[in-house]
């Protein structure tokens, strides 16, 4: 397994005070909290941070960790020393408030089983409610219109033959119902982690996240597209085709339309009660003047229109 440099993860010196560590934790927790952060790797960073803080905030664990010495480098191959755990009394040892299954093998080897005698969570003795499991599911916008199914592989904590919790992969085939929206939860009762003893199985929560689409954008249950049109289509009006998540439709562009103008296709957004709408945002696209003939048309327009696009700026 790999050595973890908890000081580096928290961005503090090895001689930092407990107050420094707490301050560093709070600051980084606000930055990487998965509910707050928009950084792509926030979830991983937050888990690492939680693990580092779990060790460094507890003076007993910190002393033990410091005893490994400062010559280790993050990512270096690591085995706990054979005498590890002797001479320490871990009162709040093992896993305290944080979720044990989220921590690394490195943490587990140092503070997990070795220190169970010091007061770690007594898994074997109690019956405990299985943990609820949360996972993100990425779907296409079109899936929200039609429904879909997804095979998901989840890590669950189960009780091994030796009576110790183990992390196992579990694959589920889940129906994504029609009408789901970005950020919504789907709850599957009893599909979380199994409970221990007589404890009930936890629930599974799937958070819906739409894949980035090359031309659709979603706001709530409304869907938007930027539709390029030619200047003469905007000025003279036209019937043009536009893609929508339910197929190509013909759209009438009124004469005198402008760039940024919005046309609404009622009820063609994400299905709901009532259905969302589909908005076409017009973007006037200029034809290139790449031949003498097209250049001549632009020159002619410049001559006869006397158009000043900056008139409203007073210049």
């Amino acid at each position: 397994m790999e050595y973890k440099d908890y000081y580096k993860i928290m961005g503090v010196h090895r001689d930092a005070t407990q107050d420094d560590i707490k301050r560093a934790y709070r600051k980084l927790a606000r930055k990487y909290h998965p509910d707050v952060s928009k950084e792509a790797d926030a979830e991983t960073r937050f888990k690492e941070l939680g693990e580092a803080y779990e060790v460094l905030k507890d003076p007993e664990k910190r002393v033990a960790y410091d005893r490994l010495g400062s010559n280790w480098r993050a990512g270096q191959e690591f085995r706990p020393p054979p005498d590890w755990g002797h001479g320490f009394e871990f009162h709040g040892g093992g896993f305290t408030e944080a979720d044990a299954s989220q921590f690394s093998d490195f943490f587990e080897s140092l503070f997990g089983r070795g220190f169970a005698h010091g007061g770690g969570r007594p898994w074997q003795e109690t019956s405990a409610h299985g943990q609820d499991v949360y996972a993100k599911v990425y779907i296409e916008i079109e899936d929200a219109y039609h429904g879909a199914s997804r095979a998901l592989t989840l890590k669950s904590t189960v009780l091994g033959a030796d009576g110790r919790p183990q992390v196992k992969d579990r694959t589920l085939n889940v129906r994504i119902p029609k009408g789901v929206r970005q950020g919504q939860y789907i709850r599957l009762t009893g599909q979380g982690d199994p409970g221990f003893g007589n404890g009930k199985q936890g629930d599974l929560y799937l958070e819906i996240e739409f894949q980035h689409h090359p031309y659709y954008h979603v706001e709530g249950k409304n869907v938007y597209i930027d539709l390029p049109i030619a200047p003469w289509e905007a000025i003279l009006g036209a019937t043009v085709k536009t893609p929508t998540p339910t197929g190509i439709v013909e759209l009438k562009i009124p004469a005198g339309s402008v760039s940024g103008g919005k046309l609404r296709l009622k009820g063609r957004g994400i299905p709901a009660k009532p259905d969302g709408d589909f908005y076409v945002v017009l973007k006037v696209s200029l034809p290139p003047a790449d031949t003498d003939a097209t250049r001549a048309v632009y020159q002619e327009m410049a001559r006869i229109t006397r158009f000043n696009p900056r008139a409203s700026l007073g210049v």
Partner: protein
Amino acid sequence: MRMKNELLPLMSGDILEEDLELTLADLCRVCHMPAEQVFELIEEGIIEPKGDNRAVWRFQGTSVRRVRCAVQLRRDLGVNWAGAALALELLDELYVLRMRLRRFEH
């Protein structure tokens, strides 16, 4: 892999949306939370039940997400319920703005 997945039973769940209504008991069970704590969340306006008294209270399905978020913010950032309520409100606003911004950034 594909073959294997097709053999698995297809499971369905509930969307925790506005239309899904939860009783106080449902919410307590789903969020693993005593009713007293739910009252605190209501007091801070983190969740809002419909109905005149506790016996007929109904919570929207989206409350589950708000409760979970508030609990995590309180646990991880050391804020109180009022702080979590403020954060949730700002996060809601930020979410809408980020979605809108995505429309203008390609």
